[in-house]
């Protein structure tokens, strides 16, 4: 297994590992793996990741530093997405976002890039990354359309939400040890618009992509037979997690809605006290005081709702999308394994064929062609042997591919879980903190009011005497 991989990753190659694998995965049935291999290497020319990446992909993945915890120190690339602008052409209207990159990585020619990208470009990037690393977990993109809620694509809130999500997306890629090395990623960040268009046109054509889809569908129909237990566990987890996170998403959105309705009513509440104060003499002060308190609480409530919408809601939503991504990744891994299993079965069948007696048909063929039966059989067996050898080679490659895919996924799975924990923990923490802050501020408002009431000396004695 590792033998084959080492051949792939020979010291003479200066291409990035991911590109290798992508070559392998796409053009499996072609005999010119190595050629395709080198084709990719030209594309990846000049991009250098790490010389230490010359071990099996599995261990490579493990070796990569998953240094989310001390990211601050080792971060060498900073990306921002901002400045949405509307573009109107004859055919369509669309929004572009400015993508600003600052980096010290050597594979980039400059240290700063400023380009404009539209949503479609992000989609393309995601697609490329998933193609190249089908069992790595690529952070989800914001949705193409929003079914409920906002209808317009050009609504301000929608654009802002999208912008933030796109920003996160790119940064997540940048943080990922493998994905951030992707050539496609680099081109995305650095190429001017027309360059990007040209670049997009290269690479595996439509037909080969179609082929992959067809294969994928065929494999998914066939299904995987011997899924390793750990992936079963992951599968189950993902199912459950998906349900839970969807529930949380819904609950949180409901809270936001209820809170907003509460705010609406609260806004009408304060003024009723003010109105009343107009008819009173002694009580006017207090009534206005209460009205003021309520108004201030209104402001705090508004802030709190805003915080919820900006902090917790997007994160939960992201992870709802993540759950779907995970399901897709697991499916792809299954497909890879299914392909391997299929080929194995094919091999077994061929072997059976070869060891079988000469069939009547073969005999007939042979005699038609004027060959004598012995020769015909011998030829046939030779042919079968050759095919079996080919199959075996393919199977070896597939096996490696399976192993690599599994390891990639395992590695990334741990990384994803840590990410998820971190993200959700900090989102909930932030929410809890904001809520504490909210109540503290409201408390202060009412305590100030109470204080102002208690400091009136003439009333003190009165109150003590009243029943």
């Amino acid at each position, binding site marked *: 297994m590792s033998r084959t991989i080492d051949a792939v990753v020979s010291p003479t190659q200066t291409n990035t590992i991911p590109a290798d694998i992508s070559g392998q995965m796409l053009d499996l049935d072609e005999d010119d793996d190595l050629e395709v291999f080198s084709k990719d290497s030209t594309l990846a020319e000049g991009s250098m990741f790490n010389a230490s990446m010359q071990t099996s992909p599995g261990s490579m993945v493990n070796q990569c530093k998953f240094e989310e915890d001390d990211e601050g120190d080792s971060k060498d690339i900073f990306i921002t997405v901002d400045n949405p602008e509307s573009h109107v052409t004859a055919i369509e209207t669309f929004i572009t976002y400015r993508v600003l990159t600052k980096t010290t990585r050597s594979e980039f020619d400059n240290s700063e890039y400023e380009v404009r990208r539209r949503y479609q470009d992000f989609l393309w990037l995601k697609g490329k990354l998933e193609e190249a690393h089908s069992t790595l977990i690529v952070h989800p993109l914001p949705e193409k359309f929003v079914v409920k809620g906002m209808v317009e694509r050009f609504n301000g809130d929608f654009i802002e939400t999208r912008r933030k999500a796109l920003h996160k997306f790119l940064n997540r890629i940048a943080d990922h040890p493998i994905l951030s090395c992707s050539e496609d990623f680099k081109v995305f960040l650095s190429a001017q618009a027309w360059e990007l268009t040209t670049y997009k046109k290269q690479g595996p054509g439509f037909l080969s992509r179609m082929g992959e889809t067809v294969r994928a569908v065929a494999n998914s129909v066939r299904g995987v037979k011997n899924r390793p237990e750990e992936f079963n566990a992951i599968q189950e987890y993902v199912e459950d*997690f998906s349900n*839970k996170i969807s529930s*949380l998403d819904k609950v949180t959105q409901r809270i936001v809605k209820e809170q907003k309705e*509460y705010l609406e*009513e609260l806004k009408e509440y304060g003024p009723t006290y003010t109105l009343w104060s107009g*008819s009173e003499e002694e*009580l006017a002060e207090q009534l206005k005081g*209460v009205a003021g308190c309520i108004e201030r609480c209104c402001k705090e409530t508004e802030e709190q709702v805003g915080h919820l919408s900006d902090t917790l809601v997007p994160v939960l939503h992201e992870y709802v999308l993540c759950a779907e991504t995970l399901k897709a990744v697991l499916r792809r891994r299954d497909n890879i394994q299914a392909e391997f299993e299929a080929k194995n079965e094919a091999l077994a069948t061929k072997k059976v064929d070869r060891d079988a007696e000469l069939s009547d048909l073969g005999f007939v063929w042979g005699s038609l062609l004027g060959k004598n039966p012995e020769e015909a059989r011998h030829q046939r067996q030779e042919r079968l042997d050759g095919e079996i050898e080919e199959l075996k080679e393919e199977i070896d490659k597939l096996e490696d591919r399976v192993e690599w895919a599994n390891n990639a996924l395992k590695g990334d799975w741990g990384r994803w879980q840590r990410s998820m924990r971190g993200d959700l*923990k900090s989102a*909930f923490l932030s929410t809890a903190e904001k809520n504490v802050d909210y109540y503290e501020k409201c408390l202060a408002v009412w305590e100030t009011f109470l204080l102002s009431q208690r400091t009136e000396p003439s009333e003190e004695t009165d109150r003590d005497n009243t029943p």
Partner: protein
Amino acid sequence: MLSVYQIYLLPVYSVYCGSTISPSQIPLYTKCIMRLKVILIFYSLQDRTLILKDIKSRDLESTEFGKHCSNSLFTNPCLFLPCTLFVQMVQEGSTLLRRMEISVAEAEKRTGKNTVNMQEIFTVYLIETRSIDAITEGHNPAPDSLWRRYSEFEILRNYLLVTYPFIVVPPLPEKRAEFVWHKLSADNMDPDFVERRRVGLENFLLRVASHSVLSNDKILYHFLTEADSRIKALSATFKVKNPDKRFTEMKHYSDELQSLTSQLLRVRARVADRLYGVYKVHGNYGRVFSEWSALEKEMGDGLQSAGHHMDAYAASVDDILEEEEHYADQLKEYLFYAEALRAVCRKHELTQYELETASSDLIFKKQQREELATGMVRTFSFKGMTNKLFGQETPEQREAKLSLLEEQIVQGEETVTEKTVACEEYVKGAWVDMQRFKEQKDRDLREALIGYAIMQISMCKKGIQVWTNAKECFHKM
């Protein structure tokens, strides 16, 4: 002595204690209520017999039913009320309604400027009237109609209240959608509310127009037939000429207090409802966190305990709102107090009005005496005319008249003195108590507001605690 009958007119759910009448009037009443599908119950005060009369049959006859219930009717006529056997006021009432059909046909929105020159939207109701005679004669004339808004009905009712203080005047439907505890129609513009109000206003008019005393009122007739704003002038002129200004102000205040507290209570109820929703939804966090914690290894404990705190948070709202109800009750007390306050002011108006009536009566009588004595006719009078036309009275007749007048004047002066004293005493006593009330109100409401602030503080403290705890749990995730 003639048999006297007491009439009980039983429209939908209330009893009118009509006046006592003599038998000769029975046919009149019968004719009046031709179209009513109610049954008149006459019972003779003398011989305690009960007569039930079904309108349609027109004959006086006693019925089985009467024999059943006669006892309870004698002891407590009001017990008769729920008996819907009789009761079906389908169409219009009587008295005025013997002459005309009345209905409140439609409602429409209008915009206009109010007293402070601000744009407002209000609803007007179409009052349609038709002469019954015209209908029964086979013509079918188009109804006369005019538009009136709710406030005009209010003015009419207030006028009736003061003019006939011994009559239980029918009420008007709600001015606003009061005390709505859920989202449905807290809105005066809501079509259902407007429709219900239309029906209520029609009901009011029918009851008034079917009342033996009220229906004869000229102002009522004008209200129904003349589309002018005289009704507005009415609110100014029907009143007392010289009420104590303080009482007028107090009455204003009582109106305001009533409407302000009821508005406050309404909004508070809605706020409470929404707050309840917010807290309770957090309970779902509890459930989902708990389920989720089963999936996670590291996060499990943190999530589980956070979930408990979310449950606690959701549950805490019950106590919070329970406490707030006490505050609402304190406000409600003063909402109802406002009514009592208004009653005191109105009573003053009544006593003042009686005084003024007695005074002007006296003045008139004195004038008459003067005229009679001097022979000069000061003002035009019918009597004066007839005198001119048909000759003067004899000196004896004049003497008799004069001495009668003198008697009446003496009486009148006594009455005026009495009433003046009564009025002054009333004003004194009432004013003292109104001051007491004012102080009590200020004290109580101040307490209530402070109490409210304390409740808010307590709620905030609870919130701080829950979320601080939750924060701790999240840290452990």
